[in-house]
């Protein structure tokens, strides 16, 4: 376990391991997206209230879920990085930010397009929507802070503190629908009881969730590899790699 942990701290080791896993992860991503889209668009029924717009759920829910999971990954990596001064963890945290920002933007956009016909509004300053917007600003703030400090280790540390503090927003997003009278409905699948989604709609949703997570894994690994190239540009193995 300890060996594994210290190995994970080695950029070269991670670069090579991720390089071997990447083709498979991308292949799995494509496969899951093809299957998920077929299930979501063709082989699932319309909703009893929302009709065909329910098909937007199969994109909106995974994007929103991932936007939060990605932030949690970023915050945990930041804690590890700060406590153990682990270079690799800083690289992982920095790599999470653009992917998470894109997912948050996608969740907000699909939510707006879904909200227009169903709720009657593109946007409402509702607790769930507003806290998700705050999440987007946290990601953008992290990236801006990191880019504005030119010294690498200082940028890493300052941005890590922001990432950790921002984690406070995650429970707010999750519980906003219970704490306030929101326009957004309550949670459907994270309840402890039976999910409030019929099985015929649950399967497409789970497949899409898996597809989004496979995409997250693949894009994060690629992004971390790039980050390693950037940070280890002066090392012998990177130079040799580039020449090859």
């Amino acid at each position, binding site marked *: 376990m300890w060996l594994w942990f210290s190995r994970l701290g080695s950029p070269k080791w991670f670069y*090579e391991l991720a390089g071997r896993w990447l083709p498979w992860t991308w292949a799995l991503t494509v496969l899951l997206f093809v299957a998920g889209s077929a299930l979501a668009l063709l082989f699932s029924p319309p909703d009893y209230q929302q009709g065909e717009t329910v098909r937007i759920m199969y994109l909106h829910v995974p994007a929103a879920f991932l936007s939060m999971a990605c932030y949690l990954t970023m915050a945990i990596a930041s804690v590890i990085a700060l406590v153990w001064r682990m270079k690799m963890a800083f690289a992982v945290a920095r790599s999470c930010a653009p992917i998470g920002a894109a997912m948050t933007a996608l969740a907000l956009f699909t939510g707006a397009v879904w909200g227009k016909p169903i709720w009657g509004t593109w946007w409402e300053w509702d607790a769930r929507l507003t806290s998700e917007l705050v999440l987007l600003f946290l990601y953008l703030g992290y990236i801006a802070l990191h880019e504005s400090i030119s010294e690498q280790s200082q940028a890493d540390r300052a941005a890590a503190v922001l990432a950790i503090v921002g984690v406070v927003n995650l429970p707010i997003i999750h519980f906003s629908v219970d704490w306030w009278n929101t326009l957004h409905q309550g949670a459907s699948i994270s309840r402890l009881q039976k999910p409030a989604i019929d099985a015929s709609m649950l399967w497409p949703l789970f497949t899409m969730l898996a597809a989004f997570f496979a995409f997250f894994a693949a*894009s994060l690994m690629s992004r971390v590899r790039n980050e390693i190239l950037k940070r280890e540009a002066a090392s012998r193995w990177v130079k040799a790699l580039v020449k090859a």
Partner: protein
Amino acid sequence: MSFTSFADFLAMGGYAPYVWTCYGATLLTLAVIVAGLRRQKKKLMETIRLQHPERQAVAPGRIVVKQTAEDS
């Protein structure tokens, strides 16, 4: 199968603009992320190559070391 005809499928029960906009936006977001990753990698490789142009000639013995990580 939820739709009886291709036209039905495209119409999405009258919600075509909303449903297809979302699927299009998702595809676009994923494509932008992937394109960004590829471009970043290409640029990094070029920058590193330009930074150390002389290395190859100075230490040819180093290059013989087997390189396991391949590009993807």
